[in-house]
């Protein structure tokens, strides 16, 4: 449903993305993986039309940069990692903004389906009780859930996530990822996300693009894409060995009383 062909992005003298191509199929959760500066967030920015690029990004065959802003927002929703609000908007007001691209005219207020989508999004994210709270009073994890509810209310076909659970406590991380997993279960939807944590990528991803220095080093089904050799190549270290070593910290050792 989303086709990316020969995507290149240049920031003044630096080539941040170099001819990257991949496709997203319905039902897929595609993980963009790679070390810092590999170009993961740049791909997200390019799809969201936040940077100038060369190459093609097509949604259902249509060039995304030629789509009008409203139909693009109905097709592609974006949840970014840096969301901060300066003013005391209520949770409901922020979520309702997700319906912006569906407005009919200057004066029309919210329609029936807008109300329904907002309710659904608030329910799905467990924010019903907070709907009248000011977003300034929420923790980082709760705020990120508000913006997730907003993008759910936006009801796009494709969800693009840039490190959606970055800086969040484990409980919120788990919560956000399982909510997105639920969302993906409805047919005709797809998810692309930038993930730093390779374990999270492996647990939730169905496909991956492994990036290094702006190039797609590997792509395809998640396990083959994140193979031991490829990861070692890209990260310059034995990622598998390190992950296992980390994991071994979590076996329950029998407690031996020193006395």
């Amino acid at each position, binding site marked *: 449903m989303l086709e990316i062909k020969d995507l290149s992005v240049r920031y003044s003298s630096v080539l941040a993305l170099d001819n990257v191509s991949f496709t997203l199929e319905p039902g897929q959760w595609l993980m963009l993986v790679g070390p810092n500066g590999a170009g993961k967030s740049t791909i997200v920015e390019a799809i*969201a*039309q*936040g940077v100038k690029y060369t190459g093609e990004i097509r949604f259902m065959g249509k060039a995304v940069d030629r789509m009008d*802003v*409203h139909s*693009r*927002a*109905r097709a592609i*929703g*974006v949840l*970014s990692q*840096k*969301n*901060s*609000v*300066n*003013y*005391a*908007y*209520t949770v409901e*007001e*922020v979520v309702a*903004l*997700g319906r*912006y*691209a569906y*407005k009919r005219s*200057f004066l029309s*207020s*919210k329609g*029936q389906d807008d*109300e*329904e989508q907002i*309710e659904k999004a608030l329910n799905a994210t467990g924010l019903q009780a907070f709907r009248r709270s000011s977003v300034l009073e929420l923790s980082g994890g709760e705020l990120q859930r508000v*913006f997730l509810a*907003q*993008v759910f209310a*936006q009801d796009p076909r494709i969800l693009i996530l840039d490190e959606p659970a970055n800086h969040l406590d484990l409980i919120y991380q788990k919560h956000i990822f399982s909510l997105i997993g639920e969302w993906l279960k409805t047919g005709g939807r797809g998810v692309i996300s930038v993930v730093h944590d390779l374990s999270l990528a492996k647990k939730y991803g169905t496909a991956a693009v492994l990036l290094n220095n702006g190039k797609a080093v590997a792509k395809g089904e998640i396990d083959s894409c994140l193979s031991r050799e490829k990861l070692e190549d890209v990260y310059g270290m034995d990622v598998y060995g390190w992950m296992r070593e980390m994991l071994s910290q979590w076996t329950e050792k029998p407690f031996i009383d020193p006395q």
Partner: protein
Amino acid sequence: MRKHREGLSLLAYAAFGLALIMTMLLCVCAGSVPIALENTLKAILYSMTGREAPAGISKTIILNVRLPRVINVSLVGASLSLCGAAMQGLIRNPLADGSTLGVSSGAALGAVIAMAFGFYIPGTTYGGVMLLAMLFAFISLILILSLAYALDHSLSTNTIILIGVIFSMFASSVINLIISFTSDHVKSIAFWMMGSLSGTGYSHARILTIFLALCGGVILLHARELNALAIGEDNARHVGVHVKRVKMVILIAVSVLTGVCVSISGSIGFVGLVMPHMSRMITGPNHKKLLPASMFSGAIFLLFADLIARTLLSPIELQIGLVTSLIGAVAFILVFYRSRRKG
């Protein structure tokens, strides 16, 4: 399914409208020559129905001096406050107001040139000053926006603020240059810079009404987009707001309206900064409520400021900009202190 209006309720509109009309009436009645409310109402009603008012009513003071001034004060107050609210949302900064882009400094420069070099339109006191101020406001708007656009196609917040600051500094230094060469006009220039609406008439009210209806209408119709921008610029783009176009349209509307106000009233500070703040404390940040509430509160605030300017040291009249800055600064500190202590 529960339905609710997002904007102000009709009751709130009625309350604001009533408060505004009461304040306007009070300001017409009070002054160096106090007038009974009954006489004021009679004079207005009789002239509206085209009849001759009964003798013994100071018709000239009411209809030709105070009423047009009071109308102008409320229009300027509403405009400046609306512009401030829009700018504070647009650039996500509660310290912004209509003058942030620098257009009002451009207007001031035009006014000072007119006063210093004696550019007058025969038959009017301030016609030349107003005309040149408006001309300069439009020229600076075009200059500022094309400069900002050439620098940064996305019109980012930082570019807007930076260009505004630089342009204002440039305009003020040219003003100071002019003042240092034309010492005999210093007093009138200084008074104009402090802002005043004394001596303004219905012709000014007509101009203000037209621009408030046009630019204010544009701003009010963009309440939703302002909400999106106030929540976050990237977020606004993601939900489908045409960020660049919306920003351009609002910046133009705000600057034109501010430019027109400055041309007529001189620089009146603090209304555009403080009144949106106070209104936000009551209505919350949603621009569908905030923008109309700011208009009403700005008008009422400026009416009281003008009343104080006229009556405090009567028969000497203070400049209204002086009063707004004085009240505004104190009120701002009080409100800020209280809200900090609560939060």
